[in-house]
């Protein structure tokens, strides 16, 4: 069993699907932060067999946790303060995604105006369908 006690203050993302930690690292733009990040791949898990874990040093404001819901709803977010888990957050599908995914519709205004933010709204929670805010095309 892996110990998360090494982190004084920060966030531990647990139950990441094995092999997905680098995707999350990229989505959360952790490469652009100067905080410490530990990536644990293929950790043994009773629940999942194998899983990935990310340990991020720093406060909640460091990362956009809403994005996690889009990437993987099963991720557990543990908030660590003074080396203790003070809160476990359940991630949900975010209602709105900005600059996380891109609209691929060649007829969309975002295809010609590069400076526009790519905004998607959750259109169907059950089927996890996001639609572009501009052209309403479904994201595939």
């Amino acid at each position, binding site marked *: 069993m892996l110990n998360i006690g090494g982190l004084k203050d920060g966030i531990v993302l647990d139950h990441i699907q094995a092999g997905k930690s680098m995707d999350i690292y990229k989505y959360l733009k952790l490469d652009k932060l100067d905080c410490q990040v530990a990536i644990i791949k293929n950790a043994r898990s009773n629940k999942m067999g194998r899983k990935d874990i990310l340990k991020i040093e720093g406060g909640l404001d460091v990362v956009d946790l809403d994005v996690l819901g889009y990437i993987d709803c099963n991720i557990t977010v543990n908030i660590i303060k003074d080396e203790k888990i003070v809160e476990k957050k359940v991630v949900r599908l975010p209602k709105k995604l900005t600059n996380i995914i891109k609209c691929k519709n060649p*007829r*969309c*205004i975002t*295809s010609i105006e590069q400076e526009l933010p790519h905004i998607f709204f959750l259109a*169907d929670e059950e089927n996890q369908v996001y639609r572009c805010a501009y052209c309403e095309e479904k994201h595939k």
Partner: protein
Amino acid sequence: MRHLLSPLDFSVDELDRLMDLAGDIEARPDKYKEACKGKKLATLFYEPSTRTRLSFEAAMLNLGGSVLGFSSADSSSAAKGESVSDTIRVISCYADICAMRHPKEGAPMVAAMKSGIPVINAGDGGHQHPTQTLTDLLTIRSLKGHLGNMTVGLCGDLKFGRTVHSLIEALVRYPGIRFVLISPEELRVPSYIRENVLDAGRVPYEEVRDLETAMPSLDILYMTRVQKERFFSEDEYIRMKDCYILDRVKLKTAKPDMHILHPLPRVNEISVEVDDDPRAAYFPQAQYGVYIRMALILTLLNITV
């Protein structure tokens, strides 16, 4: 500030008020002839559209206002690479309201996000054309006296025809609507309309291939053009374009009080011999388009007469 980007931007009550106003404009045009005196409408047409642009211009001129704008991207600063956001910020300094047509979907929404004046979507690619939907609703309501409890036949290109999709979405909000969707297999309504709008709203509908069989049950027949620009192959277009041609013979079994609508322009899907039939409503429909745009301009500018 209020914009019109999608036909569903207005609630049913708001639509009723808009159509009541359009009805009053039709009945008493003189009352409104100076309602927009001193106001300017900018028509920002990044792609050609004679009918819609002239309808907007006629609407503003009928209200005593003025019109400025451009009718193709080539004659606008878009040709120099200016963004929609920048253009609308500048136009906001020149005009009080604008109507925008753009080949890219969502462009009017981008404009609305940065605009200092109300933006009306006058058609954005294959996405939305809300003033056509308002025109269709006003035409049906004016001719039938109501918008619920009727069977509406939609015929032709139901796959790519944005007017059809918007009209379905707008009509399902009224009680007692039943649809007969008449098209070849390849041009049926998209699954998201069938599943998210019709099935989800438990709206009765049937999909058929044959217009003549469906004809006797219809209160409204909405014809559409098979649009060449929506097809990737010329052969496919040629195979589909003559699927349904409405003529006097086909109309024999239609109800005497059925009305034929068409967003225009037509190519050959309605024979010219039908034009004189009292059920042909597609030219009056263009007139209703001016009334509803007048009502829309007044409403978005908060002008009461």
